[in-house]
Every structure is written in C-alpha cells, then in structure tokens.
C-alpha cells in the first residue's frame, strides 16, 4: 500500500514531530494573540466594499502608478561618500550642475 511506503520515510516523521513540537510550544502564547487579531480583522473587514471590485482595481492602479513615479524620481542611491562636494564643485566649475543631491527616500 502507498501509505506503507510513506511510513518508511522516517525523517519526514521527525520533521513533522519537530514542527508539531514548535507549534505546540507556541500555541498557548500565539493562539490568544490570534484570537485578538481575528476580532479586529473581522471588525475591519466590515468597512471594505463588497459590491464591486472597481474600488480595488482603482487602488491597485494608484499603487502601481505612484510606485513607478515615486521610485523613479527617488531611487534612493546617493553615493555621497563616492562623489564628494569637492569633486562636485570641480566638475561643475563655471557651469550649472545637472546632478542634485537629495536627502530623500
């Protein structure tokens, strides 16, 4: 039988026992927290529109478009230590700099 073959794989049983042990140890602490989570999640779910998916598509589109705009404008790499103020002044002597050093992300 297929389950007799399965029984021979002892290491699976050992892994299952270890996971059960960890979950069993966590359960008295984690389950009450989970129950509390469920209470406020249930409360919050009531505020989400259930009639139509359009608001969710709109939010998705806003997140993607704003993500593209924000993360393109402020990619977060600054290399201030590599490109020092002295180097910047030397490079742009007598002309406007095309690189701006923002402190934002």
């Amino acid at each position: 039988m297929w389950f007799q073959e399965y029984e021979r794989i002892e290491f699976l049983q050992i892994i299952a026992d270890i996971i059960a042990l960890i979950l069993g140890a966590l359960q008295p602490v984690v389950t009450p927290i989970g129950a509390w989570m469920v209470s406020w999640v249930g409360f919050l779910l009531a505020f989400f529109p259930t009639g139509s998916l359009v608001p969710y598509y709109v939010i998705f589109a806003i997140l993607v478009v704003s993500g593209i705009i924000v993360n393109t404008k402020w990619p977060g790499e600054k290399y201030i230590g590599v490109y020092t103020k002295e180097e910047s002044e030397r490079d742009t002597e007598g002309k406007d700099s095309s690189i701006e050093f923002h402190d934002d992300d």
Partner: protein
Amino acid sequence: MSFTKDRITKQLENAKIKNLLRGTIIAAIYFTSTVLIPFWTFSWIKTINVEGVELQAYKQQVNQILFYVWAFGLLISGTAFFAYSAPKQSIRRGAFAVIQIILNCLYLWSYKFSGALEIEFDLVDLGIITVNLTQMILLYMGIYFLTVILKGYDLVDFIVNREKIKYKRGKK
C-alpha cells in the same frame, strides 16, 4: 562630463531600473500566489459535480471567497509593488511592508467565508469526520501579529537610524 559624474548618473539609472524590476517580479509572485492560484482552485471547485449533481449549497460561499481573493489579492500585489520597488531600508518601504502584512491578515481571515475552516468527510459505513481548522488559523494569525511587530520594529529602525543608513549608502 567628467568620468565621476558620468558614473553616478549611470548608477542612478541602474538603481531606478533595478528597483522597478524587483518590484515587478515580487508583485507578480504575490499576484500568482494570492490571486491566480486560489482563483483557479476555487473556480475548479465551483464546477465539481457529485454523481452529476452540482454542489449548489457551496456556490454562494465560493463566489464570496472569489470576490475576496480578487479584492485583497489586488491590494496585496499593489502594495508589494510599491514596497519592493522602494529602496532598501527606506521609510516608505518599511511603511508599506507593515501595510502589506495587515492586508495579508485580512486576506487570510477572509477565507473563513469559504467554509474551508470546518470540513466534513462523510465516510460510508463509518460515520463523519470533522476537521476544524479554526485553531490553526488562530495560530497563523498570532504568527502574523509577530511579523507585524518585526516589520514595525524595522520601520522604527529605518526612521531612527536614518543618518547612519544614508552614510552607509554613500560608502557603497
């Protein structure tokens, strides 16, 4: 244009592309795992016939869970795109990571509408076996709470150690 300036401009361009590519890949993974796979699974469940009889009783529940799968799946994927296309250790990435975990909690809990938390198996000549998964979901939710704490800690860390993070970035 000097060599240094040229190099920095190129690195900035690379960072943009890298960020957006990372965001797209992670969002695609989330979309597949939170929308496509559950959607196909529940759509298939909807079509199941038992000896030629359709399971009408479950159709309403399945429709409801399909709605939540799409709704929260879209929100999770969008948030994942925003979070993972943001630079590492940035405040916006930390903030969106927290939002994403909270949305994951809502998504997970919405599965209760599927009736999947309590499954009955009718064994011929033996009786009925009921599997109640509520305790397991509570355990999961508790673990999610711990994740929220961790992500919250990350966010506070990014805010408090802002200058140190910027200095490290500059050294790279």
